[in-house]
């Protein structure tokens, strides 16, 4: 099955709200081997001017994961997870994610390129808070290996 070139430019529906919890931030922070008090200690985060615990910069991947599920579930896209390799990743942030944020993500397929038997899909997931303000955009290129 090959990748549908018409994916380019497609905008997926905004994900349901995701409430960022303290314990989720602690869990994710331990997982990326953080020892930063802003990720674990509410008092330290508040002393630094934040409302609550601060998430590590790559925490936005949890939101991107939700949009990736939309792409994989799109039968019209022609993507199988077992054929997918992560090519590159980028986060452009307006501010860090903080516990208590209610986030949504809206994914746009920025480009679809084929190179040899492989396809490269670049997606941009715009992550906003409950007020609709930009928090971070997560940009990812997935390499989908062709059938061999």
């Amino acid at each position, binding site marked *: 099955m090959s990748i549908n070139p018409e994916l380019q430019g497609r905008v997926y529906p905004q994900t349901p709200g995701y409430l960022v919890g303290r314990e*989720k931030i602690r*869990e*994710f922070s*331990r*997982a*990326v*081997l*953080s*020892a*930063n008090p*802003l990720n674990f200690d509410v008092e330290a985060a508040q002393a*630094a001017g934040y409302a609550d615990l*601060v998430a*590590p*910069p*790559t925490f936005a*991947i*949890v939101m991107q*994961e939700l949009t990736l599920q939309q792409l994989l579930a799109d039968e019209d896209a022609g993507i199988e*997870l*077992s054929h997918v*390799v*992560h*090519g*590159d*990743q*980028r*986060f*452009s*942030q307006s*501010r*860090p994610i903080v516990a208590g944020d209610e986030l949504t993500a809206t994914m746009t397929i920025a480009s679809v390129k084929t190179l040899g038997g492989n396809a490269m899909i670049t997606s941009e997931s715009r992550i906003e808070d409950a007020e609709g303000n930009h928090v971070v955009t997560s*940009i990812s290129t997935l390499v989908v290996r062709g059938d061999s």
Partner: protein
Amino acid sequence: MSLDLQTLAALSVGDVIAERDFSLTRDSLVRYAGASGDFNTIHYRDDIAKSVGLDGVLAHGMLTMGLAVQPVLDWLGDPALIDDYQVRFTRPVYVDAETGATVSVIAKVGQLDAEAGTARIDLVVSFNEATVLGKAQVRVHAG
């Protein structure tokens, strides 16, 4: 303390601002899978990893990306000073079931604009003497 304009202006391109080694075990991968929701089997099953042409279980690229920025965050002080963080995944980090893996991170000043108060920090991230991330760059501003 967070990075201020004065500290930024005193930097030079090439300065090493932080370095750290991280030890990964198979436990680290299970923990990251649970925390991130990425349950791709190549991160915990050698047989499946080998069936798709890999040497064995490898770390999630996003785990490597996530840990590599930690020394920069500690140096910056305030995580809001990061504007942009990007990497390219170029080589796998194989995590041996018994001995694990060590990932080394060296963070250097790659570009500096003292007037604008911005810098680009380049990360050299290696495993087994070879770099595993390409174009690993953190764009920051002074607070």
